[in-house]
């Protein structure tokens, strides 16, 4: 009992410390480039975390980036062409991605697991090619330029927050990402998450005890796509311009990177993709001069982790904790003897 309280305390301290760090980052770092990096990293974190949510029902989506594209272009166009305010555009973009996820999920989730991975890959590439070629809507190969940043808001007590500055946008992103992660975490730990895990564990059995497997899978996929859309909207209004060419963020490569983030961080825990995305994003920033070798190293890292450290970073830490507690038990026993 005491142990559980202590681990809860550690968790609470950890989170508060982390939160404080994240909140205090901009003034401490006070370098626009690195604050931008942190903004993008947070967006990657949400993408990795929501992609992992799909893993909970036992499916791998290699096309999660396609739903980010939907949210990005969706939000940008809603603001630019339909005059939506940013907050509305953000939410609607999320729902747009979620609804498309729902629609595609119906045929996709009925087929064998590996087909699903292939289909999601096809989907994101198709979305990207459409965005790249549809000059009318998305500017085609020229891209979509001039996306406005959100209007400034005034909060009594804090004054006016201007989101056109990097610091302002950082806090906007921080709030949205934290809320999103909290929702995802809640869902995973809830009865819904339990059903999802049951489906992943033994789908036939879950169906036989009355779980409407298709419905639960659809909900999971739609929720994950919703948050990908939110991430996309945040991306669009930060970059102020979108492009869908083969070297953009919407290419297949990013989907691969997201999967690697999840695997390296540890796919078994909620914090895994967060840690993986953070660590790998930041390291690749620090390793800028080695940019051409980065895909190679990330690919190599992924292979090494799969072969040698299947639980990822968190799995490894968990193992260390396990050994340590065993060592402690040994010492106590010896202490009593001797």
């Amino acid at each position: 009992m005491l142990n559980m309280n202590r681990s809860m305390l550690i968790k609470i301290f950890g989170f508060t410390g982390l939160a404080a760090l994240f909140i205090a980052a901009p003034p401490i770092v006070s370098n626009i480039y690195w604050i931008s990096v942190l903004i993008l990293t947070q967006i990657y974190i949400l993408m990795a975390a929501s992609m992992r949510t799909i893993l909970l029902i036992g499916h791998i989506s290699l096309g999660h980036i396609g739903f980010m594209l939907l949210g990005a272009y969706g939000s940008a166009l809603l603001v630019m062409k339909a005059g939506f305010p940013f907050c509305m555009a953000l939410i609607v973009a999320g729902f747009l991605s979620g609804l498309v996820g729902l629609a595609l999920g119906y045929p996709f989730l009925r087929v064998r697991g590996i087909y699903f991975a292939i289909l999601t890959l096809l989907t994101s590439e198709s979305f990207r090619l459409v965005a790249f070629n549809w000059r009318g809507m998305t500017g085609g190969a020229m891209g979509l330029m001039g996306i406005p940043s959100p209007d400034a808001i005034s909060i009594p007590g804090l004054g006016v927050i201007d989101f056109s500055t990097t610091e302002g946008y950082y806090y906007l992103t921080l709030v949205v990402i934290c809320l999103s992660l909290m929702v995802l975490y809640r869902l995973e730990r809830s009865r819904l998450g339990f059903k999802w895990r049951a489906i992943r564990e033994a789908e036939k059995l879950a169906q036989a005890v009355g779980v409407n497997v298709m419905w639960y899978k659809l909900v999971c996929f739609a929720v994950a796509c919703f948050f990908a859309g939110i991430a996309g909207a945040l991306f669009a209004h930060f970059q102020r311009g979108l492009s869908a060419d083969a070297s953009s963020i919407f290419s297949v490569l990013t989907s691969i990177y997201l999967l690697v983030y999840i695997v390296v961080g540890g796919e078994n825990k909620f914090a895994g993709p967060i840690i993986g995305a953070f660590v790998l994003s930041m390291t690749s920033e620090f390793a800028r001069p080695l940019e051409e070798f980065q895909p190679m190293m990330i690919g190599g890292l992924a292979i090494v982790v799969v072969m040698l450290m299947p639980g990822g970073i968190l799995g490894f830490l968990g193992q260390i904790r396990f050994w340590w507690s065993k060592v402690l038990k040994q010492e106590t026993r010896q202490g009593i003897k001797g």
Partner: protein
Amino acid sequence: MALLEIRSLTKLFGGLTAIFELDLDVHKREIVGLIGPNGAGKSTALNMIGGVYLPTNGQILLRGEDITSLSSHHRAARGIARVFQDNLLFSTFSVLENVLAGLHLRTNMGLRDILFGGHRAHHHDQVLINKSLSILESLGIASEKDELAMNLPHGKQRILSLAIALAPGPRLLLLDEPITGMNAKEVETMLAMIRALRDEKGITCIIIEHNLRAVMGLCDRIAVLNFGKKIAEGTSSEIVENPAVMEAYLGTEENVT
């Protein structure tokens, strides 16, 4: 009216006829055996009754309602439960969690319960936990409630499968080879359990087995399948005397051990 009526049930897989025009009535509180050598189509028949396969032709009626095209989760809601072959369980869940999963039909899944139900709400819902524990106790495996399902010995895994199936209080229980791979004592326990389910809880049972002798004493009626067709139906004594049945078993070197 029979609890379950199967009319002319047929299933083709590509060119292979797995089941051909099966007719069977199962009455309330009966224990019916579906027997036959390996490959006779027994599992296919059970999969169709359970809703895993859609029949190519034919009808299945539950209390007069046509359930032929309903999927398994709808059938579960109508009181059909299943114990699968090969101890299909939620392996990485604990014994208690397995039964909690089985209680899906008795679990509130409202939005409030999902979002605000507290940390791991499902696992802290005392009503559900008590229900699960009582099921585990009645089957004698409550002491292992926190053990991971995959770490249980074979016999206890089988009993856990039964617990999961019984959790929502079904009226029709489908048992897929319930005694395969068990030693004599375990077989005795299982057979007694199944009989008790019928006698004390009024649950109707359909059992699939290839070992005729073992379930002879248990079943009220037996239908024998061979190569997808029903070749005999009757009480155990009638079946044992039936020459067609003998030929089916002797012909495949399957011993009526």
